[in-house]
């Protein structure tokens, strides 16, 4: 199967995502420049981490106007699996493909560390090979990952089971202390109502080989391969 990795000016995790798909999992992968509109027959689209368009105005605010986003939107509308990682998640929020917005981390620091996230939902293409309650140890690297939505919007996310990952302790307890950036509800990642668009702040693509400190991110790639194979 084929992964499309969108490259915006300022993306800096596009090579990590490409490496995970191509070298670690042995799948086809293509970089798609943000000015292109052809997704080249990809089965999965990844919006990678980085600082698209310099994060000018707000993180992801400019990237949503890149020509490729019309194709991503169309791909998503047809049910194609789309994963936004870190800055890619911020782009999906600004593009309205996922609900909510990001604020500066409560610590006001750019945080770069391994964290634990608990899998809440397994009926998305990126978590179908996980167990509910499974804890993944994967790194974060962001300054603005403090997820915010109004209480009514969060209630809607809960009701629709759209919260896919929460920051937790290593044994899977969702506590205030494990909430690394101040996100409402410890939210680390979510999906749209159709469940095919998923965004998360942690970087699974940087945790696909034990030499990198964790291979816990691999299950998300294995999930989407399983999901596409059974589609």
């Amino acid at each position: 199967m084929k992964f499309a990795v969108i490259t915006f000016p300022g993306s800096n995790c596009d090579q990590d995502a490409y490496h995970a798909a191509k070298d670690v999992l042995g799948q086809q992968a293509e970089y798609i420049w943000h000015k292109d509109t052809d997704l080249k027959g990809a089965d999965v689209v990844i919006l990678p981490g980085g600082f698209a368009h310099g994060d000018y105005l707000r993180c992801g605010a400019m990237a949503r106007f890149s020509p490729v986003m019309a194709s991503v939107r169309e791909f998503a509308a047809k049910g194609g699996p789309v994963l936004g990682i870190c800055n890619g998640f911020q782009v999906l929020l600004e593009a309205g493909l996922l609900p909510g917005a990001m604020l500066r981390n409560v610590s006001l620091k750019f945080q770069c560390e391994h964290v634990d996230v608990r899998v809440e939902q397994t009926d998305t293409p990126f978590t179908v090979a996980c167990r509910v309650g499974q804890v993944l140890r994967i790194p974060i690297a962001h300054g603005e990952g403090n997820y915010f939505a109004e209480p009514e919007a969060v209630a809607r996310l809960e009701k629709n089971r759209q919260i896919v990952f929460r920051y937790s302790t290593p044994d899977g307890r969702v506590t205030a202390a494990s909430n690394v950036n101040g996100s409402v509800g410890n939210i680390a990642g979510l999906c749209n109502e159709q469940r095919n668009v998923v965004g998360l702040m942690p970087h699974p693509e940087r945790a696909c080989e034990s030499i990198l400190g964790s291979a816990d991110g691999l299950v998300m790639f294995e999930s989407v391969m399983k999901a596409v194979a059974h589609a």
Partner: protein
Amino acid sequence: MRARVFVTLKPSVFDPQGRTIAEALHTLGYDGVEDVRQGKYFELDLATSQPAQAQALAAEVADRLLANPVIESYRIEIES
């Protein structure tokens, strides 16, 4: 005609930067500053001399791009 757009976080949204600035001011002895909210300021030069048109155009671009309605609100001043 110039429009000034002030974008601020909604009252319901915590502003960690504003809080830190307020704490810094307290450290400097400015206890009279009770709180700080940080925002963004834009000056738009518009190709119109009609205040109503300027207001409408500024509001449209604020809605579409300058502010994120999930976390921010805005206020517009038209300079005549």
